[in-house]
C-alpha cells in the first residue's frame, strides 16, 4: 500500500510528495528511466504524455508532448542537471519544444526525485519547485480534470484492468 505524505509551501511555491512502493528500487527507477513506462503514468488520462527523446544522463534532454482531450498538443522538455542511477536525479522542466527553443524569460520548473530503499520496498521523494504562480497554473490546467474525477476511482479501474 502506498503511503503518501504531501507538503506544500505556498510562499516558496514548492510541493514535496513522498510515496512508498512495494517494489525494489531498480524497478521504481525504471519508471523514470524507461520512456515507455514513464508515458504510462506521467500524464493524466486526459493529457497522456509521449516522450520523443529521453536522455537520462547529466546534461541530457528529454522532450515530450501531452495530448489534450480535443487533440491539442502541449510540448514540454526536461534538462537533466544531475543523475545518479538508481538513486536520484534533478532536472529543469519547461514548456516548449526544447530547452533551446524555450521562450526567453519563461519560467522553468525544477524537480528533484530521490529513491531510498526501505524494508517494504522503495520510498520516493519528489520535490517540485515552481518559478511563478502563472507557471503553476499552466501545469495544473493540464491535470485538473483528473483531480476532479478523483484519483482513487482511477486507481481501482487500472487495478481491475491490470
Amino acid at each position, binding site marked *: 500500500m*502506498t503511503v*503518501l505524505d*504531501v507538503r*506544500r*509551501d*505556498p*510562499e*516558496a*511555491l514548492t*510541493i514535496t*510528495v513522498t*510515496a512508498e*512502493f*512495494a*517494489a525494489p528500487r531498480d*524497478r*521504481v527507477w*525504471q*519508471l523514470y528511466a*524507461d520512456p*515507455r*513506462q514513464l508515458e*504510462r*503514468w*506521467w500524464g*493524466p488520462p486526459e493529457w497522456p504524455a509521449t516522450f520523443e527523446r529521453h536522455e537520462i544522463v547529466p546534461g541530457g534532454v528529454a522532450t515530450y508532448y501531452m495530448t489534450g482531450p480535443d487533440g491539442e498538443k502541449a510540448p514540454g522538455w526536461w534538462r537533466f542537471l544531475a543523475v545518479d542511477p538508481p538513486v536520484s536525479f534533478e532536472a529543469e522542466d519547461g514548456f516548449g519544444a526544447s530547452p533551446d527553443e524555450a521562450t526567453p*524569460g519563461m*519560467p522553468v520548473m525544477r524537480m528533484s526525485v530521490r529513491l531510498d530503499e526501505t524494508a517494504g520496498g522503495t520510498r520516493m521523494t*519528489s520535490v*517540485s519547485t515552481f*518559478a*511563478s*504562480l*502563472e507557471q*503553476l*497554473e499552466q*501545469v*495544473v490546467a493540464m*491535470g*485538473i480534470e*483528473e*483531480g476532479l474525477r478523483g*484519483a*482513487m476511482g*482511477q*486507481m481501482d*479501474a*487500472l*487495478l481491475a*484492468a*491490470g
Partner: protein
Amino acid sequence: MVVDLLDREDTDRLFAALADGTRRDILRRVLQHESSVSALAARYAMSFAAVQKHVAVLERAALVTKERRGREQLVRGSVDTVRAAARLLEQYEEIWRGRVARIDALLADGPTGPRPGGAP
C-alpha cells in the same frame, strides 16, 4: 482563479519577489503578524535600508502592504496572494496523487512493465 487576480507583469514581479530567501522569510513573519520595518531590520544581519528594499520588492508584488502608523511603517502579509498559490498547489497535489496511483497499478502489473497488448 489567479489569472483574474494577476496579469503577466504582476506574475513577473511575484516571481522575482519570491526568488529571494530573505524576502520569503520576511513574508512568512508578516503573514503571522504585522511587524514594523525596524523590528524586521533587527532580525537580519543587514542594514535597515537593505531590509526596507526587500519590503519594497514584496510590496510591489502585492505580497505585503505597508501602512504608516506614527513614526513606524507597519508591514502586513497579503493573505489573498499567498492563498491563490496555496489553492494551485492543492490542485497540483491531486496530479501527483494520480501519478502515484498509476505507478501502483504499473508495479502491480508485473516486474517488466508493459506486457504485449496488456496496456490499459
